[in-house]
């Protein structure tokens, strides 16, 4: 199948799911507002905290809002696209993954084309609002290199979170269960990336720099944009490595996925 054909087929499949989501308009609006509200309320807690303290380990409110917004936007894009992988543990448990395997299309493509969860737009909006609030405090000059870094970070961040969803789905081939554990890494990942990484202990900081590269979702790019030195001692240009980190973790996820599909044995019942 040519890339053009896959693209057309993707939109055909996803379009069907989109129309289905739009059948119940009130439910859709409520779910979108709910996603927005749930996350903005969490940020409300950060706002309340900053009402009591001028800085968090040297980070101002505007700076943390910027980290928070970047993490939220990247995560929401990944979450919107990767819903098929998020639901995979159920597909495996119910045995319906068999059906995926007998169709004349790749399992990865079919899982990806399951659905595009539109209500996640609420979370993207939340990230944009929080980012904007941060900007109103920071008065940054958006030079071309900073803008490029921001765009690169958002795309790489979305790819990194997407890879984590795929890794979680691949894990389900081994355990069948594991939805909850997966949520810990995805939601936990975005929670962690919402705060400056240097407040975490060294082992965790190294882990998310060198193993599961959450640090490249926003932390290193933000250090560059904000002109802050890295307490770990990495050079300011580290942020530019975000696409490399994203490519590496995506490759790992792809490998784990293929191994998982090969290992898949239907659930007996």
């Amino acid at each position, binding site marked *: 199948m040519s890339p053009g054909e896959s693209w057309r087929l993707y939109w055909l499949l996803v379009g069907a799911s989109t129309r289905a989501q739009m059948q*119940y308009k009130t439910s859709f609006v*409520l*779910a979108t507002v*709910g996603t927005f509200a*749930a996350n903005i309320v969490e940020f409300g*807690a950060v706002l309340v905290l900053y009402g009591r303290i001028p800085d968090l380990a040297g980070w101002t409110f505007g700076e943390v809002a910027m980290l928070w917004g970047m993490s939220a936007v990247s995560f929401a894009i990944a979450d919107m696209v990767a819903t098929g992988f998020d639901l995979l543990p159920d597909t495996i448990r119910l045995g319906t993954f068999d059906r995926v395997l007998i169709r004349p299309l790749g399992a990865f493509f079919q899982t990806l084309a399951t659905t595009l969860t539109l209500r996640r737009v609420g979370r993207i909006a939340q990230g944009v609002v929080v980012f904007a609030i941060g900007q109103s405090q920071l008065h940054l000059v958006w030079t071309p290199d900073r803008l490029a870094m921001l765009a690169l970070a958002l795309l790489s961040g979305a790819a990194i979170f997407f890879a984590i969803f795929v890794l979680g789905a691949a894990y389900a081939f081994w355990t069948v269960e594991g939805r909850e554990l997966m*949520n*810990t890494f995805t939601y*936990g990942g975005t929670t962690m990336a919402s705060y400056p990484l240097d407040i*975490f202990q060294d082992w965790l900081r190294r882990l998310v720099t060198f193993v599961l590269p959450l640090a490249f979702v926003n932390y290193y790019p933000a250090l560059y944009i904000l002109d802050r030195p890295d307490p770990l001692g990495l050079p300011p240009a580290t942020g530019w490595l975000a696409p490399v980190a994203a490519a590496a973790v995506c490759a790992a996820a792809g490998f784990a996925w293929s191994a998982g599909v090969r290992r898949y044995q239907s659930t007996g019942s």
Partner: protein
Amino acid sequence: MRVYYEVARRAFQRELVYRTRNLAGLFTNACFGYLRAVPLLAAFQGRPEIAGYDLDEALTWNWVVQALIMVIALWGWWDVEATVRSGDVVSDLARPISFLGYWLARDYGRALYYILFRCLPILLVGQLLFGLRWPQRAETWLLLALSLILAVAISFAFRFMLNLSAFWTTDARGLGSLALIACTFFSGFLIPISFFPSGLRAVTALLPFAGMIQTPADVFLERLNGAALAGALLLQAFWALALLGAAQGLIALATRRVVVQGG
């Protein structure tokens, strides 16, 4: 009374079946307990206290609220809504026992399970990772039990009414989730209510949510004494009774709408 005790016992036993699920949930709560503790540690760097909390109290608050999530089903509970959707609610309403009492008993059974198998283990994890400020006085445990009984009643009545809205709308879960979001903030789950600016604190004081999380956490931390303690528990009792009363009223309204399909 016997029948309610049996209903609660069954609800408790039903939860016992899902051991792996509880372990996975424990792991999640433990991870988030850790992830939420770290920003608190950073906030207290070079500051002995914030809004009347010292670091030990803030960390303890963090683990107590994490431990209470499942006890009061903060992320939602739609068991009644499911029966309204399926129509099974009709047979529940036809039982010769109180509909509200039946579900309240079930919720106490569920809550007791989570106190033993989620709340206590999470507190132990918090103790191992950071060290908690445990109650110093023996009577605190009794007061805590009382406060938790009331907290579950408030939270149950609130969730129960959200579920009953399914009699009027097909979007009960969507609307209910919005209400639960308000609950995560105003209950003192995301940040202690003492941290709120005074205007927001005034609004919070008029709402029932603090009685679900902040009050039991304050009792655990022994932050309340004498009249303040009695006042907080009385306020919890007031909200428990008021909301349970409102829930009973809502049942009366809802049953007028029940239409049984024959077939």
